């Protein structure tokens, strides 16, 4: 096995039963429920390199959390094999737990009625962190995430973002080699988001920590080196950010500012993405940028400014998601 690979997922499958309500009409039918077997993860294989930051993207219910739960040993895969840092998550769960940190968005590790410092101290005993090391790391994270006035107050009095930051600290104190972050930026305000992302980057830089984060938020992907997109339990994309941006070819986005937008028939040049008072945004093929007619239009007197750029990641992603829907 390649030494650089810290997580190896090999043709993993996971099904589960859900009860769906019956759509048939009638008093009794509405109470009947049928059991449906849902495939949450279908034959996914992937490799994650040591010290990388990987973003796992997908719509709600795409199987992201199920995949993470299998990597962390919470769920057993039905088929396939997972190796995390040379351990099998479900067979060596306790051993692996010492090396990993997990932030599960909705289920914080913090004790609701107690200040976060109590949870931190609990983590110290749980992971047997030496006192001096513990003090040092705690000080560092409190400074980095500006938690000085926060960590001694009962968790229930904290804002969502403060809770998330404390949760992050709780799962980082034992210097885990691998950290799983399930939607770490839900409800986090802008400065905290930056602080969290910075903390992730610093941990990777200084300790060589590997991060795997699931998210819906495109800005979160900025810090990732690698992106994996899954849909309906299938892996649809696995590559770098640049590769993701290019997934629909080298199309360019042209923003055109004009006093008289109605005069111009944009449909001739490409797909209209957005149109506001004096601005139109269109997606064009790269060859269009050399098209004489197009250039003439850009330089006409109606147009007072224009800008050419690569499509934004969020646009690429929404297009990718839409293409999934079409496949159905």
């Amino acid at each position, binding site marked *: 096995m390649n030494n650089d690979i810290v997580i190896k997922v090999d043709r993993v499958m996971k099904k*589960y039963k859900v009860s769906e309500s019956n759509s048939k009409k009638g008093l009794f039918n509405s109470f009947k429920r049928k059991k449906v077997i849902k495939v949450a993860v279908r034959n996914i294989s992937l490799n994650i390199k040591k010290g990388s930051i990987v973003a796992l993207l997908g719509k709600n219910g795409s199987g*992201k959390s199920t995949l993470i739960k299998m990597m*962390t040993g919470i769920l057993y895969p039905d088929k396939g094999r997972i190796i995390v840092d040379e351990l099998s998550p479900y067979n060596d769960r306790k051993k692996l*737990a010492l090396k990993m940190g997990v932030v599960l968005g909705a289920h914080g590790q913090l*004790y609701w009625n107690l200040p976060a410092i109590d949870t931190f*101290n609990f983590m110290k005993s*749980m992971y047997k962190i030496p006192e001096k090391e513990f003090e040092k790391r705690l000080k560092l994270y409190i400074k980095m995430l500006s938690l000085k006035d926060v960590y001694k107050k009962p968790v229930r009095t904290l804002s969502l973002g403060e809770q998330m930051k404390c949760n992050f600290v709780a799962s980082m104190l034992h210097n885990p080699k691998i950290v799983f972050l399930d939607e770490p930026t839900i409800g986090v305000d802008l400065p905290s988001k930056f602080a969290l992302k910075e903390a992730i980057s610093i941990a990777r830089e200084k300790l060589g920590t590997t991060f795997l984060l699931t998210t819906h938020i495109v800005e979160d992907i900025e810090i990732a080196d690698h992106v994996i997109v899954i849909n309906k339990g299938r892996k649809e994309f696995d590559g770098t950010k640049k590769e993701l941006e290019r997934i629909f070819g080298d199309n360019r986005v042209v923003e055109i500012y004009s006093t008289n937008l109605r005069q111009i028939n944009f449909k001739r040049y490409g797909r209209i993405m957005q149109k506001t008072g004096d601005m139109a945004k269109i997606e064009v093929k790269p060859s269009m940028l050399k098209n004489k007619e197009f250039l003439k239009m850009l330089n006409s007197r109606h147009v007072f400014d224009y800008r050419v750029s690569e499509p934004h990641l969020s646009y690429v992603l929404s297009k990718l998601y839409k293409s999934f829907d079409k496949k159905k």
Partner: protein
Amino acid sequence: MNNPYIAFFKISIKDNIAYFKDYLISTIGRLLTYILMIFVWNIIYLGGHLSEIGGFSLMQIDAYFVIGSAVFLIIDSMNDRILSDDIKTGNIAKSLIKPVNYVYMVFVESLADNVLVLPPVIITIMFVLYYLGISTSMLSIVTFMIIMLIGYAIINVIQFIIGSLAIYTTSAFGMSILFMNVASIFSGAVMPLTFFPSYISNITLLLPFQMFTYVPTSILIGIIPSSAYLYYILLGLLWLFALSILGYFLWNHVKKKISSVGG
């Protein structure tokens, strides 16, 4: 001390203290129903001019109800509700990502719940023994404690089994209620087992439920003679052993099926 389970025990107690007032109020509420039972039995004994029913004098039946209700209060491990809540809410993930054994974590959590009730229970028992002038030997007190421990271990295992069935039903609430109702009858918390018709009491005297109230309470107030102590200890251990094996295999089967909410 860097033992994870001790650390978990400490933080759970700290967390529980936040709910302690609520717990105390509900406990007082439950004790009130038992006080009502004492009035009822007093009327039965005095109205019928009876000096003894089923081997219990009026003083013994009063002691039995107060001590028995205190014992039944503390013996409930709540494992079924802890486990079923963990499964229902997906909180089980919180424990599974830690380098600890989940089953021990459940036991430690339930112990942290029970420890807080221990002081009022001990005070109640001591007060009753003193107030009613019941003399009890050192051997009885020690055996009482042993039986309590065995009973607590048995109910832990049974409630753990009920809780793990939540994997199939998502919520074990119905079964928890059923179990507590059956247990309160067959444990002798509603009335001493010897009050039942003999064909029922003969069966209940073989079941494990009696360890939750009837046996420890009767030992303490001198209904069960010291010659029978060893029999009850062995019977309790036998049940504990058999149920533990059942629980072990069930849990090993169930833990592969855990699928918390959300995908």
